[in-house]
């Protein structure tokens, strides 16, 4: 009896469970199928998620002057699904000032992207145009307005380093887009804009807005408690001195090459001049693609950043490096005297013979032919070929420590490595045990299979100024209000040369400017400049004029490298230009107005001088492979990856 009752109870429970299910299904059937009120409510009461674009971070120079700011513009977006088929196209075209055919095409493109997601229809309408359009755009469902900003510049300098922004490409969107970017968004493509994109861009905000069946906004949802405000991007505080930069760009008119100034104690870039350059205002806003095509097709390659991407044969500035390595290796000392025998390499008139100091002062070629031989052939092996290889490998380690043959890691993308060959390269060309010192001696005076970018040259100047160390060059010395610095720019790189070996070299550099290879007008009365000229042979015409230096001699505050292509002797063009940069930075003004005007007026581009006039200084024993700076021009900043 009891058992039976239990059986019943399980049925009662099962019945209760079943009943609940049936009641629910009935109620649901009423809610979902019979009652129409909820369907109407759904269409009349929907929430839209409106994205708020953040204000992109600004970029400042070292004295707080604005390098990059923002200008508000507006995009008209289209959601193809919501566009009415019987839209009044005629009035619509008149409103936006476009052709009927264009509307059709743009709608087609938008539909190909997505029917339900908004994509840009007309880009970057100015604030004044917006006022006219905004009110009447409501009559055209499917079209909406999205505020954006474009970059603006109060000056026309530093284009290569600032970089530009452009619409994100579909590939990039696919790669990193889904979290942050949407089609039509702008992203930094080159320069600082690209390098510091994640700091500059800020964070998008979201606003929930109630929208009725006509798409009219009915105010924020729940008083906006769920909205998140857009967080503006971080500002960048750079070490650039805009005045110095302006001077450099002024001087580089009609010249190809680069001037880079760095504060040696910190590695902060003070000026980064590339010639030829372009106005950054060209690559912003609606004119972007037109101007970009124009710049890209320009035979002067103004988009090409010679400071970072062109390896030049360094020429005689390389002797400073050779002298340091030789001392450290113990194969010479400051008293070593070598006669100027011009059997293998040529030289120019100067007091003979030279000791270490005067070899720098007068830039004696045979001296360094001998010095480099002493570095390479130290009789570590009886076999000359093997000995050369051992010596070269050792020497290459020094070169690498000085930052040659690899990217230094400046905070602007697309830096190149320069040229520094491994023994494997020579093995491949000449065969193993088939090359010796006489094969590679051009390197002794900075010619041959060697290429330094102007950035690597100025870094050499920094190492000399600091007597043995450098900081990786960088432009940004503070991100955001906390002024954060990327850690690698605080790391000191010490080169394996003792401080004591620098003194003689620096004195030689000081005398090179005072009474040596440098043109007298490059001297300054009140400041002692140390410098070394270079005159680099190249297959493109007249020699490249090169100069590295720093000032003042004690506690240097500026290091500079200057390369002017096809302009002749280093002491005559690059050195005076560098001295003007030093004067501007240290004195904040230029007293040598005549020199300034003279240097501005020199034109090394349009008076084409294809044949070198001066006699050859190096017998062309080795093929000058890969030392063509112009060869790299093909990969201009246009292909930015």
């Amino acid at each position: 009896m009891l058992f039976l009752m239990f059986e019943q109870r399980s049925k009662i429970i099962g019945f209760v469970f079943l009943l609940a299910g049936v009641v629910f299904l009935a109620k649901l059937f009423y809610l979902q199928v019979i009652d129409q009120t909820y369907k109407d409510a759904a269409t009349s009461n929907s929430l839209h998620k409106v994205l708020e674009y953040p204000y992109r971070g600004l970029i400042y120079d070292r004295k707080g002057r604005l390098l990059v700011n923002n200008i508000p513009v507006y995009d008209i977006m289209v959601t193809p699904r919501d566009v009415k088929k019987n839209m009044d196209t005629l009035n619509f075209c008149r409103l936006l000032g476009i052709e009927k055919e264009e509307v059709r095409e743009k709608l087609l493109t938008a539909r190909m992207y997505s029917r339900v997601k908004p994509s840009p229809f007309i880009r970057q309408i100015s604030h004044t145009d917006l006022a006219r359009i905004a009110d009447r755009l409501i009559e055209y469902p499917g079209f909406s307005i999205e505020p954006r900003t474009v970059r603006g510049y109060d000056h026309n300098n530093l284009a290569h380093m600032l970089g530009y922004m452009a619409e994100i490409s579909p590939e990039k969107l696919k790669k990193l887009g889904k979290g942050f970017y949407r089609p039509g968004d702008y992203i930094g493509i080159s320069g600082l804009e690209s390098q510091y994109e994640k700091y500059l861009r800020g964070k998008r905000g979201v606003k929930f807005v109630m929208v009725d069946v006509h798409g009219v906004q009915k105010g924020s949802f729940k008083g906006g408690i769920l909205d998140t405000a857009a967080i503006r991007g971080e500002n960048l505080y750079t070490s650039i001195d805009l005045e110095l930069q302006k001077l450099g760009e002024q001087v580089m008119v009609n010249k190809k090459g680069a001037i880079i100034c760095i504060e040696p104690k910190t590695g902060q870039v003070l000026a980064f001049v590339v010639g030829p350059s372009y106005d950054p205002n060209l690559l912003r806003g609606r004119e972007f693609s037109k101007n970009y095509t124009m710049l890209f097709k320009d035979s002067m390659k103004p988009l090409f950043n010679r400071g970072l991407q062109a390896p030049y044969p360094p020429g005689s500035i390389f002797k400073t490096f050779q002298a340091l390595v030789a001392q450290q290796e113990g194969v010479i000392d400051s008293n070593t005297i070598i006669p100027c025998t011009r059997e293998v390499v040529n030289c120019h008139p100067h007091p003979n013979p030279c000791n270490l100091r005067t070899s720098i002062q007068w830039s004696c070629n045979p001296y360094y032919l001998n010095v480099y031989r002493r570095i390479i052939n130290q009789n570590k092996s009886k076999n000359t070929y093997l000995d050369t290889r051992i010596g070269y490998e050792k020497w290459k380690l020094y070169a690498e420590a000085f930052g040659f043959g690899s990217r230094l890691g400046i905070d602007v993308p697309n830096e190149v490595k320069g040229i520094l060959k491994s023994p494997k390269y020579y093995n491949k060309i000449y065969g193993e045990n088939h090359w010796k010192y006489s094969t590679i001696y051009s390197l002794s005076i900075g010619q041959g299979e060697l290429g330094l970018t102007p950035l690597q040259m100025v870094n050499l100047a920094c190492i000399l100024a600091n007597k043995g160390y450098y900081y990786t060059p960088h432009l940004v010395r503070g991100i955001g209000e906390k002024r954060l610095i990327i850690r690698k720019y605080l790391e000191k790189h010490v080169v394996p040369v003792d401080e004591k070996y620098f003194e003689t070299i620096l004195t030689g550099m000081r005398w090179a400017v005072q009474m040596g290879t440098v043109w007298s007008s490059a001297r300054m009365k009140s400041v002692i400049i140390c410098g070394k000229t270079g005159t680099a042979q190249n297959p493109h015409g007249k020699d490249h004029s090169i100069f590295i230096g720093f000032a003042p001699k004690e506690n240097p505050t500026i290091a500079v490298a200057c390369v002017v292509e096809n302009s002749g002797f280093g002491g005559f063009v690059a050195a005076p230009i560098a001295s003007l940069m030093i004067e501007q930075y240290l004195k904040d003004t230029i007293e040598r107005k005549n020199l300034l005007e003279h240097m501005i007026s020199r034109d090394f581009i349009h008076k084409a001088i294809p044949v070198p006039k001066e006699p050859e200084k190096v017998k062309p024993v080795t093929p000058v492979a890969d030392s063509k700076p112009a060869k790299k021009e093909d990969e201009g900043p246009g292909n930015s990856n």
Partner: protein
Amino acid sequence: MRDQGTVIKNIDWVVVLLYLAMVLYGLVSIYASMYDPVDDLPIYSQALPSGRQLIWIGTSLVLIVFIGAIDSKFYEVFAYVIYIIVLLMLIAVLFVGKEKAGSKSWFGVGEFGIQPSEFAKFATSLALARYLSNPLVRLEKLKEILTAAAILGVPALLILAQNDTGSTLVFSIFIIPMFREGLSSAYPNLVIATVSLFILTLFVPQIALLAGIGILGLLVFFLMRKTIQNISILVVSLSIVSGVITGVDYFINNVLQPHQQSRIKVLIDPNIDPLGAGWNVTQSKIAIGSGGMIGKGFLQGTQTKFDFVPEQSTDFIFCTVGEEFGWIGSFLLVAMFITLFMRLIFLAERQKIKFARVYGYCVASILFFHFLINLGMTMGLFPVIGIPLPFFSYGGSSLWAFTILLFIFLKLDAHRTQILSRE
């Protein structure tokens, strides 16, 4: 693992398949509830709840293997130990727990949180089953009833102390397994009567209700035999009933917290505050109602796509099902649950030991209570009580807890033939 093979052979595959189907249906719904066409993230993206739910599902499957591996006698032998451990956790969480949405009920581990109250359900089920497994206990004596009530009451009170009213109410459903094991039907009747009276009070004016009760009392008075005993019973019951009626107002206005008050008031008239407390109910009904017969289609919902209701993918997950899959989808969901309940009752009844049977009823009842309250809430039939829909709602603790709850029973069931009846 001597009996691993037999577990796979003897496990009830109907329930296992139902479980898997529900978990996957839930996953798809969670994805749909948070899907943003602008970002277009895939279902496994860790930025979405669905991606994280996928991890919870994966770990649940590992849990199932563990439960299958443990000896089936373990649960009966260690029932009280597990119960005590969970009680200690419930006490600990009061002191070191994290506060989340007003309830201090989480042990935080980084981004993930563990909610001990979820695990109290299966621990209490084990303890109750263990107590009732004694063949001498038939829930006829008051002492037995009070002991059983204490087993349920302690965890319930601890959870109430965490300010988690929803999970506390779950413990009331243990009346079903107790009823099955012999508890006098007067108790469930009393509960039903009180609840009905309570609801009646909400909708009918107090004066009218009191007058009705008065007339009813008079009617009974005239019809009954007027012995002292009958009259006193009548007077006592009349005063209790009118006490309840007058007490409801006091209860709502003075005992309940403001958010609970408004949830009940909204139930009576959703329009009193459509953008405030009524918001959830109104929006939920609009979402479900706009689904129609066949729904708007996967990821095509417009009402549940925005993360404005914090419980979008958890307690209100049924809205997404209703909106995107329509009545057909809702029917499927309800049918799956009812089938599961019927199957569980069937399995419970075929157990040879009382422990397994009681535990089986506990499982079915707990799942039923969640199903009842959660769906009722989204349809606007019950006040908004924040409890998850088993296997569907997003959340690691609840999925783990329901998985453990269910699969312990399946493990017991798989071994029913190896155990000699002890009754």
